[in-house]
């Protein structure tokens, strides 16, 4: 599904962001990316949706390799198979919830008669069937994030990439959004979620990949206990 093989990423100004990162997210898997700010979580996600390319190593997503995929149109096609969710929701403020979700279908040329039923289904899935016509400013943070998730889901992605999706939400909204992500995963979609929220991480037995200074310092899939000062101590 998503595979990082010895991936390093260096920026001209800020230096190294990732160092020889290797991991694989399997089909239908749920994995957290954790670690302090600047650890490289968002860099991994940006590499996973080909917003950036590794300085060395290889990223493979749904059988497409960073070594082969170069054109923007190829990236666009790949992103149609991914769902991407951000901390700041990234909704269009001047469009209703329905229009925001439909937008994701329109831009990829989905037939008109298919758009409405798919939008309704996605919004129902996230529990917002009653707020189709609401504008983002009329929705709470949690609801806005649900709209963003509906937009990410409407194309039936193979993997959902979520960058701190609960970062702007209160505890109750966080639980709701996280439960939604779990449901999505249960339905078969792989989820790669970056988060600071260690309580959330501890509350499940999902795979956890912990980063520090651009390196993977702990991966629960490898059954190594967290190193001192890592996940365990941070809690």
């Amino acid at each position, binding site marked *: 599904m998503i595979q990082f093989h010895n991936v390093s990423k260096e920026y001209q100004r800020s230096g190294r962001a990732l160092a020889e990162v290797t991991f694989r997210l399997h089909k239908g898997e749920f994995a957290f990316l954790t670690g302090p700010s600047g650890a490289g979580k968002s860099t991994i996600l940006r590499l996973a949706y080909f917003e950036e390319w590794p300085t060395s190593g290889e990223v493979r997503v749904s059988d497409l390799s960073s070594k082969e995929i170069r054109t923007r149109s190829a990236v*666009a096609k790949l992103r149609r198979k991914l769902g991407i969710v951000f901390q700041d929701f990234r909704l269009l403020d001047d469009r209703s919830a329905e229009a925001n979700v439909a937008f994701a279908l329109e831009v990829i040329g989905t037939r008109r008669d298919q758009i409405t039923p798919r939008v309704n289904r996605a919004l129902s899935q996230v529990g917002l069937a009653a707020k189709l016509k609401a504008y983002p400013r009329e929705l709470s943070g949690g609801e806005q994030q649900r709209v963003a998730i509906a937009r990410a889901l409407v194309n039936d992605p193979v993997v959902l990439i979520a960058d701190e999706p609960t970062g702007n939400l209160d505890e109750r909204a966080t639980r709701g959004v996280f439960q939604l992500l779990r449901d999505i995963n249960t339905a078969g979609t792989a989820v790669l979620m970056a988060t600071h929220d260690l309580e959330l991480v501890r509350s499940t037995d999902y795979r956890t990949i912990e980063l520090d200074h651009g390196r993977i310092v702990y991966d629960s899939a490898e059954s190594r206990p967290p190193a001192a000062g890592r996940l365990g101590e941070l809690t």
Partner: protein
Amino acid sequence: MRIAFRDALFAVRKAPLLSVLSVMTIAFSLFAFALFGLVAINIKRALEGVEERVEIRAFVTDGTPMEELANATAEIARYGEVQTAKIVTQAEALARARKELGEFSDVFEEGVLPASIDIHLKPGARDPRTVGAVAARVRTIPFVDDVRYGEEWITQLHRLRNIAGVTGIALGLAFAVVAVIIIGATIRMTVLARSKEISIMRLVGATDGFIRSPFLIEGFAKGIVGGLFALILTWIAAAVLEHYLHFRAFFFEDRLVLFGLAGGALIGLMGSGYAVGRHLRRI
């Protein structure tokens, strides 16, 4: 395409002030260019009017048989550079001189002025070199006594025409470049105003072509509307000039009007294409 049109319309409705601003910027930039064009066209027309007076007059020896004169005139009329060649008899020359000189008309007596062949050249053949070449050729005709064509005057006129032409092209290009830069900057503002939308389009898998299309439609439409406004403003300016300066100003021919509108549309289209393309390369 339907979505591109809808999004273009949506963008205009979403930011009407910005849309009006960009249309007005296009309109005033094209208006400045069109005003300059109007002045240039009127200067060109005025110079063409003066140029029409360029004439070669070949005076012939007294007593030249009319048949020979007619043959030579027909021969001259066949020159590629010549528009008309006409015999002016001694009597006609006298009548013309008397008419042109008015109160001094009785200075001339019959038989004083020689007959001549008056030659008008085609447009484009009125430069000093061509006029001189035709005059030299006419001079070789045996019964032609003298050939006059106001060599110095034609040279000055040609120089003036060249200066006007070069200045016109240079200023025209400068106006066009300034117009394109201003229009480009305005369109860039509309692109930046929608940068969030563009980045979301990218995230959900829109191709660059899809992202570009509403901007291109918007730019094209704004260019046409701006061009129309510029045309109306120019027409008003020409009418005002005519009214206050009391001269008959030439307005653009229909094909130039169409060319201007197409130019506006093209600037809008290319400006949008460039601005959104540049933005897409950066994000």
